[in-house]
């Protein structure tokens, strides 16, 4: 049975529109114009136990809204969702004990106290048995390497250290489902890498179901077997990372190493010339034209080396993100 089932889930809300200027501010006191924002539209998704799924999308695509819906923070405008059999927005205590939400931009720990105090509080509110608490804490502090930081006030920790503490706090009650909203946001490369390593290891050991939202390709590439691309509130792709390139890129990159004093002869007619630093030329050509183009190029030039490859994943995804579409309907 799937752990997460989402059917036709939608969320739209109204936001106040303010025109520029003081006059508009004054009229805004009396009459306000609103706009409906469709943050999530008719999303369907099924996640099995133990899957590590990434939500990938630009800012404002609906990733966070989806995670908020699944954590029960907000009600949907339409559709249904079930997580481990619970309807999230009913917010049953039994459900709350079984999942955790970590938001990269939010701090859930007590700012002025050592993290250990927040952990003890979690032990109580989640009713974790003392022995299990100690074991989990030991395990987490070893995996995250935070043992020596537990007694420092949270306000004195670095952002990366704090994020580790947030994760530890969220995992103390051994949730079956974990929602991570941009867990590596604002962290430096080393800290990002550590968090990724931890998540990978932890997920492999515990077989928890994790939904992670991110706009960092690196997070996703490092962690997730399955990627769900969301733009403008809709799922555009659901599959493996390598599948993205096959599906969305109709082009190949061809790098030619020309011989000696050979000059390129009107290569632009085959496609786009991206780079020309003789004797090296880089082209982008539609997949369907590749065989014909290669035959012609080889007939007209002396070529020392040819590389034909897929465009880099980041590029494909960036293209996908930037495809223009009206994000809001009024």
């Amino acid at each position, binding site marked *: 049975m799937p752990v997460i089932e989402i059917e036709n889930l939608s969320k739209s809300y109204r936001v106040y529109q303010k025109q520029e200027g003081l006059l508009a501010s004054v009229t805004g006191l009396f009459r306000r114009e609103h706009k409906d924002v469709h943050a999530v539209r008719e999303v369907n998704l099924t996640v099995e136990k133990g899957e590590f799924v990434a939500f990938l999308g630009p800012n404002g695509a609906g990733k966070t809204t989806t995670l908020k819906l699944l954590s029960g923070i*907000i009600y949907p405008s339409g559709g249904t969702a079930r997580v481990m059999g619970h309807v999230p927005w009913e917010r049953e205590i039994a459900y709350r004990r079984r999942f955790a939400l970590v938001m990269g931009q939010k701090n859930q720990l007590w700012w002025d106290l050592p993290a250990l105090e927040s952990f003890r509080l979690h032990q109580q509110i989640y009713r974790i048995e003392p022995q299990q608490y100690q074991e989990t804490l030991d395990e987490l502090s070893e995996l995250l390497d935070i043992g020596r930081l537990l007694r420092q006030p949270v306000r004195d920790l670095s952002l990366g250290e704090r994020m580790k503490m947030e994760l530890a706090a969220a995992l103390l009650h051994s949730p079956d489902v974990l929602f991570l909203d941009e867990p590596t946001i604002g962290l430096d490369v080393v800290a990002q890498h550590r968090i990724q390593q931890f998540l990978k290891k932890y997920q492999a050991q515990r077989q928890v179901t994790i939904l992670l939202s991110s706009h960092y390709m690196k997070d996703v590439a490092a962690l997730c077997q399955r990627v769900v691309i969301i733009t403008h509130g809709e799922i555009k792709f659901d599959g493996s990372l390598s599948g993205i390139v096959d599906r969305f890129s109709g082009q190949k990159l061809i790098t030619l190493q020309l011989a000696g004093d050979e000059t390129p002869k009107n290569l632009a007619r085959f496609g786009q010339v991206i780079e020309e630093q003789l004797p090296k030329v880089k082209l982008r050509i539609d997949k369907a034209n590749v065989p014909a183009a290669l035959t012609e190029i080889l007939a007209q030039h002396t070529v020392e080396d040819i590389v034909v490859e897929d465009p880099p994943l980041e590029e494909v995804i960036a293209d996908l993100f930037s495809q223009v579409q009206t994000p809001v309907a009024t």
Partner: protein
Amino acid sequence: MLPRITAWWTILRISLQERLVYRGDFALGTLMRFLPIVTQIFLWFAIFANLGTGARITNYTYEELVVYLLLTMVARAFSSMPGLASTIARQIRTGDIKKYLTQPVDLLGFMFLSRMAHKLAYYIVAIGPFALVFFLCRGYFIHLPDAPQAAAFAASLILSFLLGFYLEACIGMVGFWFLEVTSLLFVYMLFSFFLSGHMFPLDMLPQPFGTIVQFTPLQYLAFFPAQVFLGKVQGWDLAMGLLIELEWVVLFMLLSRVLFLRGLKRYSGYGG
């Protein structure tokens, strides 16, 4: 039940620790609260000095008035909730309230326990200065309450704590609709300072205002407990007074819960 009690104890303990992090600020804040009472006593001293010895204003002598002011200070130590409404409103605005939606912990219950911890910390520090002020003014306490009266006084103080808590919690919940409650809170503080009897005894007010203020819940925050101590309400009136205070408590307790649930519905509907 037992795990619940240990959870309560943990929340209480941690809130207390947090309260004591900024010791300097806390101690200074506690001591500064004695400043207004000193100026008030001097003010009334000046007024009575002009009236001559043995003078009364309505039915208060100078000594009685000083005792009254000291007692309202004690009552306010129970019923005032500095920062409660603004904390709730801020959590709504910043989204920190999400914690209470995703974790198995109730916002109002949590706030209640941490407020108890705040009060406890305050009493520990304030008991010294309180004792000193009462000792210095000991001559003004002409009759002390007997045991049943003292018990009624204690009950009225506990009820005033509950009333103060739920009243301010309700104002904080308004943050679900208006996000910013500072002005509303200011208006409340103003009324509460005046209508709770913190500034002067409410029975000094001319009619019909004297009767009108009897119908607001605010008088239970300071005036009523002081009256109980002074023995000015007794017997049937005392029992009725406590009962009405209890009814106000229950009313605001329910109201805060309703506002919380409705507010959450609104919050959840509007993107969170």
